[in-house]
């Protein structure tokens, strides 16, 4: 058999050759975090599913896990190899040292970080990763910083978006002043995770303590907008173009506020808002917009998550394989924007008991590899 770059030529018995119309796909090694496919799921497992279904390339998947019981470590046909990595809070040097060790063994082509809390470190380390020949496709640090929950109202003013009024507080004594600027109920939010609806100062105090104990301060107090929450997953090319965007409404929400079921929407206003935002910010990478649509048809952006959300596989099911497009973009390939998606596609999560063996757990716990 003779292999040419793009076609496979097979020698037949009668010495004739046929050119098989099989395009030889390149194979990329892609490292992915967020394997915590729990009731508060990270996007890692659905991102991997999407990459395994990519048309343009084959993949070898390197899972990067922080905890030794992240389900994605043990799921079949998800990762090819998993490495434990240190939390970004241990310092970026330690994390990069570990990535360097993994890269020496695996030769990673693209790294897709999926946690809010790790993004800053990976964005800051983009140059160092580049030197290791590891590509990422993340927002610039300015884009990442200006859409933080704590400065979202300023972001809204700058880009002409409707954003609920919000203030950050850092100490319990600030709670007394909330009544002068807000009408109850208000949303009490952590910088990265968690949001609770509080109807009075006592509840704000309770949630302040709960969130700050877990994620620290500041705490964000946000005006509560009544309406329906809708979400958009999108991918920006960094030059102002939207490669893809799919809106979704959560149909079933867990007690952690996570989507357990959802359906794609055909609301063109959501696509317009997303495209404008990406155009004005020149957003690079994946993002999720969390939007409240009021009964008066006003759209308030309540959060901008600078990464692919855990429900990304719905977008794949609706016809937009955004993780595939992200990898191509990271590798500098020209990616044609998606033109459409299916409206009325649904996803429903489920729980499933995997049976593992203590030897797997032992190996991963002791060696940090599986």
């Amino acid at each position: 058999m003779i292999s040419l770059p793009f076609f496979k030529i097979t020698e037949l018995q009668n010495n004739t050759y046929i050119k098989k119309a099989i395009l030889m796909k390149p194979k990329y090694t892609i490292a992915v975090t967020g394997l915590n496919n729990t009731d508060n799921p990270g996007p890692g497992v659905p991102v991997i599913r999407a990459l395994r279904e990519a048309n343009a390339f084959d993949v070898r998947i390197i899972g990067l896990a922080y905890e030794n019981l992240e389900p994605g470590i043990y799921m079949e046909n998800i990762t090819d190899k998993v490495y434990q990595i240190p939390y970004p809070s241990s310092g970026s040097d330690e994390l990069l040292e570990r990535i360097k060790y993994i890269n020496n063994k695996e030769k990673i082509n693209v790294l897709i970080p999926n946690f809010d809390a790790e993004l800053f470190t990976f964005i800051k380390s983009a140059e160092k990763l580049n030197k290791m020949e590891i590509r990422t496709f993340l927002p610039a640090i300015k884009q990442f910083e200006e859409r933080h929950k704590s400065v979202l109202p300023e972001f809204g003013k700058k880009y002409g978006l409707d954003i609920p009024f919000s203030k950050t507080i850092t100490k319990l004594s600030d709670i007394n002043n909330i009544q002068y600027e807000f009408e109850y109920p208000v949303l009490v939010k952590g910088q990265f995770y968690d949001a609770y609806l509080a109807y009075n100062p006592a509840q704000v105090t309770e949630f302040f303590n709960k969130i700050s104990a877990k994620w620290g301060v500041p705490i964000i107090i946000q005006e509560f907008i009544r309406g329906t929450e809708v979400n958009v997953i999108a991918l920006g090319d960094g030059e102002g173009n939207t490669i893809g965007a799919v809106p979704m409404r959560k149909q079933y929400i867990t007690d952690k506020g996570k989507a357990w079921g959802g359906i794609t929407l055909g609301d063109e206003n959501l696509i317009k808002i997303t495209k404008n935002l990406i155009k004005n910010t020149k957003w690079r990478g994946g993002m999720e917009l969390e939007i409240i649509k009021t009964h008066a048809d006003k759209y308030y952006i309540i959060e901008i998550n600078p990464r692919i959300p855990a429900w990304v596989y719905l977008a794949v099911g609706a016809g937009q394989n955004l993780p595939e497009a992200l990898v191509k973009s990271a590798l500098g390939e020209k990616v044609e924007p998606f033109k459409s998606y299916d409206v009325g596609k649904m996803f429903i999560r489920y729980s499933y008991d995997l049976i593992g063996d203590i030897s797997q757990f032992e190996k991963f716990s002791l060696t940090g590899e599986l």
Partner: protein
Amino acid sequence: MKIRKNIAVSENGFLFDPNTGESFSLNETGKQILKMMKENKSEEEISDWFSTNYEVDKITFENNFNDFITVLQNYRITE
């Protein structure tokens, strides 16, 4: 009164609003009304059809029809 163009109604009377993601199930009567409204039939034509095919007088039908339209308006199914 018109049904929004992108509203989808299946043969079984399952209505899906792609703007909101809401879905509803219609009974036979509701399904028939939606079908006729989508065909741009007037209220009078719909009323005539029901009084011919069902044992219902026009006043009773129109009262019920108006209630149904109010429900459709509340759910923003109409334009």
